[in-house]
């Protein structure tokens, strides 16, 4: 019976998803969502693009304009549960979602990137009835800004509306943790939960006898205030940077500069294109805009790369960004954050000595997948608050709402939980704590789970079956 259900697709757990636009994000989404078992139909104007996707992934392709009624019908908009518009054009994405909403009974997600619309997104969303509008550049800028506030960290993922964060950092030499086990360092680790340690290519979810070594990449989850205290105890830099140097004046640079200026951080932007420079100078009157080639060593020195506290290459070319990063690592001890668009060759990039790397494309796909997971839950109510792919895709960190009584009110140590899974924190009415074996989940809690299993979409998935 389940087979018939699957074919006729009356199975509620499988979503009919239409992805409009087979650019990089479209392809990544098709990959991830089809791997999660959903029915994917992709639409693109270019036959080659459609062919490429439908040959690589198990999806169906339709060639045509995604905001045309006829094409949407052909792609099966009537039965679709979710439409994701990620074409190059913001207007097309919005139009496509609007039409999709009128024709079918689906949720719609649009990508809108132009700064002109940035402040109007909530308005657009509610007026056009679009479920979600994502602005990858804005999100990327937010992530970079977060890292600049805590330069000691390699990456920061925030949960519970920013109350809890998952921080990844590199253990410095001569750190008070080095050479000691987790049990021995109980005082130092007070208030934080170490949820993963990467050493070379290995990822361990450490137990009490795990011994830290200098150079380990440690990830921990903690309420925000504890992070600062913890970093101070092990003498990792916690002071936010006071100035930033950005190479490349694209959209991310614009959003980032705006945020940083608001926080009182000095911003320098080096941009090649004169027109863009004058636009930036108009819009960001407090920033210093230099016009010139950002890969020119003299220009970098002249602009003061040696004195900068942070350096952020944001050009459109990944290779340039990587080279600039390596250069900056060599000449300065500034905090360097690299933006990389391409998602292949991640292992190669991980092998380089780079500080923090930000992938705007992952930010987009992660939030859409979190939405899709929440959506394919039978109730349709969003019980996944946040989802991050961590440790180079080997694990997921999910924030879930406890809404099923079968897991509630039993001490964690007595529950039959899945392996390779960690309940990292519980948020009970605003009070965030790290659970011990004696604690119970209660209805209405939100929990953060770190797991190697993929596809969690409800709290009962933590139970071993």
């Amino acid at each position, binding site marked *: 019976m389940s087979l018939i259900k699957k074919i006729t697709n009356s199975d509620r757990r499988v979503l009919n998803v239409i992805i409009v636009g087979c650019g990089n994000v479209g392809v990544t989404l098709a990959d991830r969502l089809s791997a999660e078992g959903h029915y994917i139909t992709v639409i693109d104007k270019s036959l080659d693009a459609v062919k490429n996707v439908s040959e690589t992934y198990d999806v*169906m392709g339709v060639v045509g304009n995604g905001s045309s009624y006829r094409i949407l019908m052909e792609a099966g908009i009537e039965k679709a549960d979710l439409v994701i518009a990620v074409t190059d054009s913001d207007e097309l994405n919005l139009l496509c979602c609007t039409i999709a909403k009128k024709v079918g009974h689906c949720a719609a997600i649009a990508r809108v990137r132009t700064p002109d619309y940035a402040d109007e997104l909530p308005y657009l969303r509610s007026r056009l009835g679009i479920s979600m509008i994502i602005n990858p550049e804005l999100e990327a800028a937010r992530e970079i800004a977060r890292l600049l506030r805590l330069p000691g960290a390699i990456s920061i993922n925030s949960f519970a509306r920013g109350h809890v964060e998952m921080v990844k950092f590199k253990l410095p030499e001569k750190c008070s943790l080095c050479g000691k086990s987790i049990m021995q360092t109980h005082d130092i680790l007070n208030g934080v939960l170490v949820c993963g340690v990467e050493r070379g290519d290995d990822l361990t979810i450490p137990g009490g006898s795990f011994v830290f070594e200098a150079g380990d990449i440690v990830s921990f989850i903690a309420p925000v205030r504890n992070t600062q205290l913890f970093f101070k105890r092990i003498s990792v830099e916690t002071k936010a940077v006071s100035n930033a140097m950005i190479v490349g004046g694209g959209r991310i640079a614009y959003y980032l500069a705006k945020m940083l200026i608001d926080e009182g951080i000095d911003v320098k932007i080096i941009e090649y294109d004169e027109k863009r420079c004058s636009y930036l100078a108009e819009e960001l009157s407090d920033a210093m805009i230099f016009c010139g080639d950002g890969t020119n060593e003299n220009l970098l020195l002249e602009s003061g790369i040696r004195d900068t506290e942070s350096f952020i290459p944001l050009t459109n070319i990944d290779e340039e960004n990587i080279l600039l990063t390596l250069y900056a690592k060599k000449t300065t001890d500034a905090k360097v954050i690299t933006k990389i668009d391409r998602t292949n060759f991640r292992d190669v990039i991980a092998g380089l000595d780079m500080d923090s790397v930000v992938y705007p494309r992952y930010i987009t796909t992660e939030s859409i997948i979190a939405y899709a997971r929440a959506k394919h839950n039978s109730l349709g109510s969003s019980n996944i608050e946040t989802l991050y792919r961590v440790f180079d895709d080997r694990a997921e960190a999910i924030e879930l709402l406890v809404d099923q009584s079968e897991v509630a009110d039993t001490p964690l140590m007595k529950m039959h939980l899945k392996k390779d899974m960690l309940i990292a924190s519980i948020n009970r009415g605003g009070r965030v704590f790290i659970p011990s074996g004696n604690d119970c989940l209660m209805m209405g809690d939100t929990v953060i789970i770190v797991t190697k299993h993929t596809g969690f979409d409800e709290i009962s998935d933590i139970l071993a079956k």
Partner: protein
Amino acid sequence: MNFRIISYILGWVLTIESIFLIMPFFVGLYYGESAAVSFLIGALVALVVGLPLIIKKPKNTVFFVKEGFVAVALCWIALSIFGALPFVFSGEIPNFVDALFETVSGFTTTGSSILSDVEALSHASIFWRSFTHWIGGMGVLVFLLAILPLAGGSQMYLMRAESPGPSVSKLVPKTQYTALILYGLYIVLSLIQLLLLIAGGMPMFDAVTTMFGTAGTGGFGIKNDSMAGYSPYIQWVVAIFMVLFGVNFNIYFLLMLRRFKQAFKNEELRAYFGIVLAATVLIFFNIHSGITNAADDIRHAFFQVASIITTTGYATTDFDLWPAFSQVILVLIMFIGASAGSTGGGIKVSRIMILAKRAKQEVQHYLHPKRVTKIHFEGKVLDSEVIHATSAYLITYVFIFVSSLLLIAIEGHDTTTCFTAVAATLNNIGPGLSMVGPTQNFGFFNGFSKIVLIFDMLVGRLELFPMLMLFNPRIWFYKRKKNI
């Protein structure tokens, strides 16, 4: 080349075949025949070879076009070889090449036989012969895709290599469900035909085997005179279902979704029905004379046209005795074949249409050299890649046809025999004219010619290229660097 995944797929195909081989064993048991044992042995042999290959799933399940093509070609060869063994074991077709010819003819839904007396075969063997038609009709790899979830989109390569037609489209986003839907439609149509045949008073065994032959558009008769001995009602049912199985299965899917308008707007469907109608009418007026019964003539004309265009190969009358005009029409529709995405063979109606439109475009181009023209097909502008692939298909087809003809002619039979023998096997039809006419068989060819014809049948069923890939030495020999 990812040989590991190819052998894994091969292992699955053999395992499935061993399950299929159990069925004639039961049929043989039911009729108390000693031949049944040889099918059990055949099943065990296939299982023993197939099972070790599938015990461990390969780590790397990614494969590309070439692996898909090679896998499909090898699977069909293996399928035929193992399917031929029971005939040899039971001694009913002692010569292995003959047994292979019969089995390939079955799986490729050709229906050419080397047997002069079909009725002398055991029930088990007759059942297996017909059953191979049914398996081969929709394709064994499509069946495999329906039950075996392979990772990623690469499975489309398998489906594309096995399915007839210039381009293969999915019905639903998941390949596995597309395969399931295709088999579902196939089974439902088969069952409807079976019920209609039984309602017409056909014995159960005859009805089942005839249904297998019709559904796969194969055409192995179970009587020496093919379908001539059955009642007009049964002949009509078979004729209509032959035409139905020659329709693109996507049309049935559209009907299932109640998208009738879209289904009937299909250009290929209209052309296909048009050709069937025109050929029937022309042949009827050609063979009808004052002394013959008009109802019989219509039935014979329609049955033969349906049988040949869908490349089935059943016959209700000896069309070798028909006037030349009718025979030429039959030879022409031999080449046209059924619709793309059906169980039939031949060049396919849609390819002929694309080629005709391309020819028209060329003429227009000479008239107005600067004029920009695009070929429209099924309401869309045809991609130039499809047109190129279709032209390449035709050229390759002609090459294979001519080379086979030359090789067959060495033996020294008359031209009509050689020409129609190649046409009948390459298009997966079955009977030809003259010495290979509907009342004759292919038994008189020597071993070499039979092997050429076996190759033609496989090439025709798999749409030329997968089989040709096997002849490219780069598939087998390539330099591999050790541990880079």
